[in-house]
């Protein structure tokens, strides 16, 4: 067997090894219920902003504290604490992906990814205001 073929095989093995290792980093989109079962473990939860509850962000008191409520896929509403500023356009987000963990009945998250309504829906031209 040629040396380059051996190297090729070794590297393919390395590549597979790498992929298997890093695939351990992959997570799944979960619900508050699973996050509650394993308190303190980090999860990604998809949900919607609960617009019936108030949002709280007061930079004068604490610039790194933003509280709101999210309804997850199963319909469970939870208070959420985000340690950062309130993201722009947060109210308009169609859905949010929260990365964080459950503690004391609150979901404490360090990252928010917002899914904004597709540009298309906004494309409809409303002429009422003209």
């Amino acid at each position, binding site marked *: 067997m*040629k*040396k*380059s073929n051996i*190297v*090729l095989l070794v*590297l393919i093995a*390395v*590549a597979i090894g*790498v*992929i298997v*290792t*890093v*695939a351990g*980093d*992959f*997570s*799944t*989109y*979960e619900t508050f219920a699973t996050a509650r079962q394993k308190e303190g473990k*980090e999860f*990604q939860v998809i949900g919607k902003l609960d617009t019936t509850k108030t949002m709280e*962000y*007061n*930079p*004068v*008191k*604490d*610039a*790194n504290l933003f509280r709101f409520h999210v309804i997850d896929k199963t319909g469970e509403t939870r208070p959420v604490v985000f*340690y*950062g*500023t*309130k993201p*722009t*356009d947060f109210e308009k987000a169609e859905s949010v*992906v929260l*990365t*964080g*963990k459950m503690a004391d009945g609150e979901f*404490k*998250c*360090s*990252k928010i*990814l917002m*899914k904004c309504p*597709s*540009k*298309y*829906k*906004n*494309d*409809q*031209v409303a*002429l009422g205001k*003209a």
Partner: protein
Amino acid sequence: MDTKYIGEHLLPGQIGHFSAVLAFVAAMVASVSYFMSVQSKEDLLKDSWKKIARWAFIIQAIAVFSTFGSLYYALYNHYFEYKYVWRNSSRDLPVSYLLASFWADQEGSFLLWSIWHSVIGLLLLRVGKKWEAPVMATLSLAQVFLGSMLIGIYILGYRVGSNPFLLLRLAEENQGLPWVANANYLDFIKDGNGLNLSLQNYWMVIHPPVLFLGFASTIIPFAYAFAGLWTREYKEWIKPALPWSLFSAMILGTGIMMGAAWAYESLTFGGYWAWDPVENASLVPWLTLVAGVHTLLAFKFSGHALKSTFFFFFITFVLILYSTFLTRSGVLGDTSVHSFTDLGMSGQLLVLMAVFSIPSFALLIIRRKEIPTVVKEESTYSREFWLFIGALILMISAIQITFTTSIPVWNKIINGLGIKKLFGLEQDIAPPADGALHFNQIQIWIAIVIGLLTAIVQYLKYKDTPKGFFTKKIAIPTIISLVITIIIGIFGDVNYVAYGPGLQYAIYVMLFASVYAVVGNAMYIFIGQKGKLRAAGASVAHVGFGMVLLGILISSAKKEVISIDRMKMLDGGFFGKESKENSRENLMLPKNFPVQMGDYHVTYAGDSVAPGDAKTYYLVRYERRDPANGNILEKFTLHPDAFLSNKGQQQLTPNPDSRHYLTKDIFTYITAVPIKDEASDTAQYKSHEIAPGDSVFFANGYMILEGLQPQPQNRNYAAQPNDLAVGAQLKVFTKNNEQYNLLPVYSLRDNSYEVVVPDTVSPLSLYVKFSKILPKEKKIVLQVKESDTFKDYIVMKAFIFPFINVLWLGILVMVIGFIMSIVQRVKANRSKTIQS
């Protein structure tokens, strides 16, 4: 009933759409004719097919330019009857951003790509010679597909492409709306939707053309490789393909890094690279292209690695198409912050990918036995062997990045094939929670190996290297690099313990690898090439690459957030269990109130707007003082800015501002500002009964009642003869160790009525009233109010990026190296043609 619409400009649209369709048809004629020209046996037939093909391609190119011109004309004149114009521009958009509008959307960017293909094609007509026909056949076919993205015609009930000249009133989402039937509807459409605020940036004008030239140019190595397979001239194609592939690697790399520079300078991802799927998708083809360039060189000088060269050039273009699919099909919606919106063309994009990948790889497999190979095994001490290894390492890097980036695709496949049910999986796969760490911990090892190879491999000779030769030559650069690394390690204070000792160790090794790559290649110019700069393109490019690695390493490992909010740290936040999630990276700055941040005292000094500019600029003053005597050592002002509203809606779109030093950048951007027109102040006064010496706490500090002062002097209080006045002498201490004196006054006028004169600390919005004296308890009543709503403040983040200039300079050096190599290869090719 047909409505006769008033005021529409239909001509540019008609010309534009006609040109788009013409380009599509002409590209078909060109590709078929070029194909026939290659397949024909007789020279006469070959030539006549080629002649047809040439004309068809020229017509195609003219039509593409005409499409471009028409769309630009409509944009320039604000013809909002066109949906594309309405959607992506507005009247107040500066003319300089019109091009940004042009390629802000799918159709425009396809058109840009198509233009570059046309330009490259016209060039190939001149320089292609005998390779013209087979190469242009592939290029023309690509033009057929790109053209099809723009025609927007229904074929067999399936809408092919999206017509950028679609009229607003004919757009699907507006059908049935009442205004559509209105003949003078244009009177009501005064302005367009406008360009996305984060795209209103000069980088958006210059980055896409370069990046798309990079995309467009990857088809040339692909087409040459395919032509080689197709015409069974397995070796000859590499000579003309080499300068093209160098060019392509250079432009694509530049385009990607311009995107990084844009992200760094104007966007608020907090840096130049975020491992976002869109970034990854364009990086991966660059990696495989660079791998291909290296195996090509290995083949050219040793005869080995020809098959892998085919593979790498094929996979590069296929990955470009895959990245196009990822960013344009809407599949990345959940995972990326900046992909295009779905135009419903996923099917078309998949077909495009299949059309180019299946024939090329199929032909490679079918004809693999015909591809010449060297029977003799390569020596371990040969350059080609290690070039090949390096290429495979790059491939591993590409595989890992692609694997993670494709998570949304895996989800689609898993759902589509019903595998999810099979394994009882309930949830979709999500990308790693800490994406940057996920990529960094793998890619750093790849960067280490690549860095080391970059340093060493030039010192090896093709075929075989005498052992003494290699060790003798490599010794000095190795020792120098070790010394430099140790110096940087000790004095540069490179410690990155955030993720444990494993990554820390890797960072030290990578530090050496990247220094080694720089030093090794810089010295090779003198050791290996005896200072002949003309032939040193590769060494120069590799020096640049080493600098890029070094710059990335230092700026990321030593990146420091200085805007840490230390005020709330003591109440449980910082040392508590929440400290990991709550890194307190946002700092609130009240107006005119210095706050300590790292080595600096930072003051928000107000905001300003300029006429004709939609942005608000914030003045942030930085001051660095000598800790010993308080003298100002350094002073500067940054102007981070932000769009505060978008079409009347409250929205913050910030752009950072940086202070550049040779060795570091201080990078500042706004993360929140108060909504100024909010309803009136709702804060209430709170009463405190205190005796002298007592203190009262408020949100930002506390105040001590030092004593009572008869005959008080307060700028708001004018003493009158019959006043019996007392002032409460207060000392205010803030959490920032700032001190203020307050003297609210209580006075009994004419023995009958009370006059209360409050005092304020305006930067704190602190209002203090002295409202009563309680003689029995020897106390007074103090009323304190902190207003939040009237307060003017900003919330910002600030980072220090050390040695980021090494990265930018490295890119520049790399580009120069590429240009030197290209010039050298083109010259070499020319002189050989003249000789033969």
